[in-house]
């Protein structure tokens, strides 16, 4: 396929991956769409134990974005491995399994229990702003990012991609730390930590005080951070943050990403996302681009 792209030793039929937390385990959207039109899916973030998620309001719209405070509601790694994975494993898609945790040990145990599932990429979530179990504490310091990456590397044979938080001072340093810890790839950005106040009730909207901002509002920030990461490390990058169409995918590739993830846009206009591969192909024909690799990091 013309839009196919090499990522590590894998070939994605196109660079579009559904972002973790926005696409469940793919089964809901599969009722309405041909989800195999995508290049891959990063499944809902898993933790060692099942989680009910956060109390109170979980979503709040903003100009060109939304905040969420789901809090990693998920069935846990055991239910995923025994019940969910067998149902979804045969898809013609690159499968990314996203794992979060609160301590090093919960990360490692979760990852060990998933080792028997034949998935393609482990996405190590050290960037969820909504819960302690999201591990953002690991992702905001280079030293701890390297430490956890190294420990996970020693405990899995899977391709290891670390998902980074934008809520840091120097993203390049964090990415380099993951590289020296043994990561195979980097994905970024997770949501931007944000807040809302209801002036009528004089209360903070979210029970958890802060929430994660996503959508087009954060896209220029994401693009900048992908660019900085690409300058700092040789690792392949999956870029994300507010992407909604083919032109924006191309921007992320030009900034240095080898593939992208799309999340919030599925809530806005899912039809448009499933048309991006065809749009990309038209753009390539128009521009005389033979392979998408030609444009990665060209700016």
């Amino acid at each position, binding site marked *: 396929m013309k839009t196919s792209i090499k990522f590590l030793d894998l070939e994605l039929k196109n660079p579009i991956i559904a972002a973790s937390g*926005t696409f469940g385990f793919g089964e809901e959207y599969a009722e*309405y769409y041909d989800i195999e039109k995508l290049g891959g899916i990063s499944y809902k973030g898993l933790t060692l134990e099942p989680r009910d998620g956060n109390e109170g309001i979980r979503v709040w719209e903003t100009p060109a974005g939304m905040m969420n405070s789901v809090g990693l509601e998920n069935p846990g790694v055991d239910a995923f491995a025994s019940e969910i994975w067998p149902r979804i494993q045969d898809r013609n898609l690159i499968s990314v399994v996203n794992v979060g945790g609160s301590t090093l040990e919960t990360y490692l145990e979760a990852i060990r229990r998933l080792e028997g599932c034949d998935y393609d990429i482990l996405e190590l979530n050290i960037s969820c702003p909504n819960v302690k179990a999201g591990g953002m504490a690991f992702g905001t310091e280079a030293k701890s990012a390297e430490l956890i990456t190294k420990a996970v590397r020693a405990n899995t044979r899977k391709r290891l991609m670390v998902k980074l938080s934008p809520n840091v001072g120097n993203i390049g340093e964090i990415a380099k730390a993951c590289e020296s810890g043994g990561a195979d790839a980097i994905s970024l950005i997770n949501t931007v930590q944000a807040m809302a106040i209801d002036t009528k009730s004089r209360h903070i909207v979210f029970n958890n005080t802060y929430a994660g901002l996503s959508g087009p509002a954060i896209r220029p920030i994401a693009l900048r951070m992908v660019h900085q990461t690409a300058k700092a490390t040789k690792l392949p990058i999956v870029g994300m943050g507010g992407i909604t169409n083919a032109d924006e995918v191309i921007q992320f590739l030009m900034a240095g990403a080898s593939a992208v993830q799309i999340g919030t846009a599925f809530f806005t206009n899912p*039809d448009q996302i499933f048309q991006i591969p065809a749009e990309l192909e038209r753009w390539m024909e128009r521009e005389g681009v033979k392979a998408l690799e030609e444009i990665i990091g060209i700016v």
Partner: protein
Amino acid sequence: MGVEGSEGRVLSIREVGEEIVHLIVSTETTPKPGQFYMLRAWQEAPLLGRPISVFDYNEGKVEFVFKVVGKGTEILAQLKVNDEIQLQGPYGNGFPAIEGKILLVGGGLGNAPLHATAKNLKAQGQAVDLRLGFAEQIFLEEEFVQAATDTQFVVGGLVTDGLDMTKYDAVFTCGPHPMMEAVVKMARDAGIPSYVSIEKRMACGVGACLVCTCKTKSGNKKTCKDGPVFEGEEVFYEDKHQIS
């Protein structure tokens, strides 16, 4: 563009009360009573569609009643006949099929899905009574009267006052959560099953994003996918208001 059949056109739009809009849209889809669509009639902003339940459905035409409460509903309210509108859905489960005499208790905009439900039950030859509460002003009075065997309105008071549920085989309710909680309790006392339609902020509408989680007796449920209709006892139990 859209899921096959997701594009509709406005066939009729009119204000039927203070900031209350009755919208009729063409569709190739067929909703069940109690289901909803994500409505969208704009490009970029607001970000999300607006989940609105079905007021009525007739071959190729789906009707909605909504209140203007923000930017999204404001844009919807300003649509003109023949304008395009995107309808993602129908989503959700809808009210169950239950034999016998059914009581429907609604409040405010929660009355809207009960119209489609009553009409459907009546068409199947079931006895169905509507008890509808309105804060100040009844909207679409004639439609509600036609939809049921017997329709009674309460304006400004409590729609649950004086209800005798022992005459019914089941009760369906939609409206403010305290009202639904009262209905569930009355149904429990009368020994009949109750079903509630829950309203939550939503994003995806299909059960993927988990922002509309509803706590139930048997764990977290997705309001958009497992609901919006739940057994009353699943949501309101032990006299404890479980909805956040």
